C-alpha cells in the first residue's frame, strides 16, 4: 500500500482504513477500493487510538482542567455553587466634561470575565482595592480624559423564600476617585474608545441617571 495512495484517499475524504475479513458482507462501500487495501489491524489501531486519546484527554481535562488550560477538554462546574441570600452587581461610570459613560471591558482593555472580577474588587478596602482603583484610574485617563471622575456603583439584590425580592433595587455609589495622568512607562495598554457591541456588556445602564 503506497503512502501516496493513502494520502490521496485521505485528502479526498474517503476511508483510508479498510476493515478485515470479519466485516465482509457488512461493508457495502461502493467506493472502488483496490484489493491491495490497508491492513485492517493498522486501521483499527488508528481509529481506536483516536478514541482512546479522546476519552483519556476528557478524563484528564475533568480532573485537572480547571481554568480551561486543557481546552477543548474541560471540567464542567457550571452553576455548581449553592445559592446565597444576596448578591451584588457593580458598574463603573466615568464623568467627563462631555457627559457620563458606562465603562466597558473594551474601554479598559480587559477580557469580559476579568473585567467582572475587577469590578467586584474595586469596592474593597485595603491594598488590593487600592491597586485596582489605581489601575483603573490610569486606564480611564487614557481611554477618556485625565481628571475624569470615576464612580463605582453597586446594587444589592436580596433572595427571599420566594426568590428574588426586587429585580430593580436602588444603586449606591460606593467609591469616587479621579483618573490620573498616565505614566508612559508604567501605564497598562488600554484599547481606547472602540465601537462597543452591547452584547459584551452588562445591562444595568446606571450611568448617566444621576447620583443617588
Amino acid at each position, binding site marked *: 500500500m503506497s503512502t501516496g495512495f493513502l494520502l490521496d484517499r485521505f485528502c479526498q475524504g474517503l476511508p483510508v482504513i479498510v476493515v478485515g475479513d470479519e466485516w465482509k458482507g457488512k461493508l457495502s462501500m461502493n467506493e472502488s477500493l483496490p484489493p491491495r487495501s490497508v491492513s485492517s489491524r493498522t486501521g483499527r489501531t488508528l481509529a481506536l487510538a483516536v478514541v482512546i486519546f*479522546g476519552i483519556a484527554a476528557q478524563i484528564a481535562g475533568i480532573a485537572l482542567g480547571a481554568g480551561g488550560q486543557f481546552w477543548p477538554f474541560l471540567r464542567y462546574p457550571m452553576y455548581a455553587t449553592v445559592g446565597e441570600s444576596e448578591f451584588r452587581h457593580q458598574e463603573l461610570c466615568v464623568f467627563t466634561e462631555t457627559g457620563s459613560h458606562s465603562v466597558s471591558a473594551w474601554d479598559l482593555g480587559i477580557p469580559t470575565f476579568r473585567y467582572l472580577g475587577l469590578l467586584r474588587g474595586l469596592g474593597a478596602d485595603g491594598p488590593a482595592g487600592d491597586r485596582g482603583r489605581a489601575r483603573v484610574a490610569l486606564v480611564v485617563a487614557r481611554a477618556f480624559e485625565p481628571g475624569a471622575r470615576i464612580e463605582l456603583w453597586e446594587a444589592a439584590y436580596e433572595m427571599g423564600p420566594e426568590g428574588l425580592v426586587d429585580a430593580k433595587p436602588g444603586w449606591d455609589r460606593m467609591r469616587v476617585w479621579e483618573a490620573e495622568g498616565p505614566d508612559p512607562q508604567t501605564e497598562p495598554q488600554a484599547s481606547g474608545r472602540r465601537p462597543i457591541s452591547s452584547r459584551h456588556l452588562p445591562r444595568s445602564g446606571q450611568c448617566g441617571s444621576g447620583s443617588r
Partner: protein
Amino acid sequence: MTGWRDGPRSRWVLPACLGGFLLVWILLVGWIFPEIVARAYSGEGFERLGGLMSGRDRIGLDEYLGDLATNGLRVSLMLGLLVLISLGWAAKGLGVTDPWLEPAPVRDLAVVRVVAVGLQLGLLLWPGVPNASLSADPTYSGFLASLSTDAYQPILALKILLPGIARPGPDLLLAIWFSCVAGCVLGVIGLGGRIPLLIAAWSTSTLVAHAYSYGEYHHPEALHGVALWLVALAPSCAAFSIDSFRRRTRLARMSSGFSPSAALRSPHARWPLTLLGLLFAMTYFDAAIEKLLIGGVSWFGSGTLGYHIAVDATRWGISPGMWLAQHAGALGPMSYMAWGIEFFFPLALVLSLAAPILVAAAIAMHVGIWVLHGPPFLQHILLVGLPFQQQMRAARDRWFPRRTGLRVLYDGHCDLCIRSVCALETLDVSGRLAFVDLEDGALAREIPEVDRIDAVSWMHVVDDRGTVWRGFFAFRRLARGMPALWPGLPLLYAPLSGHFGPRIYDLVARRRSRRGCRVHVQVAGRSDL
C-alpha cells in the same frame, strides 16, 4: 451481534479490564499518591513534584491532599461511568469493538459534518448570535490581540496549533478567520475532501484557544471543536457532499448503473459518532457530579436555581429570568430535573429508547438556560442529538410510523438522468426518496399506471398515496418533500407558476436531449434527439 474476535465471553473483557483499572486507580489515589505528595511537601522524594508545590509556605498539606482526593474522586467516577457503559454494551451483546467499528450509515456522519461546520460558518459570519462564540468574532479577536502582554497566557492547545508564534497579532488572526470561513464554506458543501475540513478545524480551534489564552472560557465551544476535528478525520464527505455526488456520478457512468447510497455504511462512520456521544455523556455527567462535589446536597435547595437565574438575569437584563427568579417556588423540582438530565444522560449510549428522550430533555434544558440565564449553549443544542441519529430514527419508526415517501422514476441508461438522481440523493437529507430504474422490469409490476415511454420523456414521481406527478409538478412535489429544496418553494408555488413552470421544464427537457440522453424525448408533441 459480535464483531472482531468477539465471542460470547470476550465481550466482557473490556468491562473487566476497566473495572480492574478502576480498582488500581482507587488504590493509587487512596493510599499511594497521598504518601508521595506528603513526602514531596516535606521536601523529600520527587523534586519535580515538590517544585510544583510553589505555595507550600502558605498552603497547608491538607489542602494539597484535599485537591488530590477530589480530583481522584472525579477520575474514579469517570472510570466508573466507563465501566457501567461498557457493561451495558456487553449486556446488549455488543463485542469490544462493535460500538466503535461496526459499520454505520455514512449519511449520519455527513449530517454531523454539515451541522457542525455549518454552525461554525454561521458563527463566523453572523457573530450577532448573542455571545454564542466570542472567539468567532474577528473584532473581538482583534481586541484581545491589542491587550497588554500580561493579559496573555497561552494555553497548551494554542502552543500546539501555532508552534513558534509567541503571540498572534491582529493580522494573523484575521487571516486565520478568513481561512476558517473558506474551510467552512467548502466543508459544508463537501468540496475538496478533508483538506478544507482540516483547515476549518484547525482555524476554529486556534481562534478559540487564542481567546482562552486571555481568560475567555466558554464551555459550549469545546465539544463543537472536537466535533470539527472528528468530521475532518473521518470520511464525512462520503454523503451529502459535492465530492460524493461527483464520485457517485462517475462510478454510475463507469458501471452503467445507479445504486442508491442509502445503505452505504462504513466502520469509520461509527467511531466518531460514538466518541462524540460518549464525550457529551461524560461532560453532562461531570456537570452533575460537580454539583455534588461543590454544592453537595444543599445544591438541591429551592433557592439555588433561582439564585443562579437571578444573578445572570439581572446582570444581562433578561426579563423572563427576572420574572421567574421572583417566583422561585417552582424551581425546586427543576433543580432535580436539571441534575437528573445531566446525571442520567449517559444512558442514551446504552438504552436506545432512552436516547431520544434524553436528547430532547438536554435540548430543552439548554434552551431554558439560554432564555432564562443568557448563556447560549447553541452548539450543544444543535450537536447533542447527532451522535444518536440511529436511535432516534428507530424511536421515530416505532412511535410514529412513516409512510413510504416518494418514488422517483429515472432512466438508468441516461447519463443526465443518473446525474440528476445522484444530485437528488445528495440533497435528500431526510431519506424520503426511493429510486426506481425504468430499465428495471419491476416498474410495470409495481407502478402499472406509469407508461415507460412517458416516464423517459418527463420526470415522474409517485407519492405514498400512489398519486403520479409528472414533469414540473413532479419536481415541485419533490421540492415539497425535501428540506434542502424548501428555500425554492416560494418560487415554485408563486402565482402563475403552474402556467410557466411546465413550459420552462419542457425547455430544459428539450436541451437535455441534446446533452447526451440516448433516448428520443417526446416533449409537447415533438420529437427531439
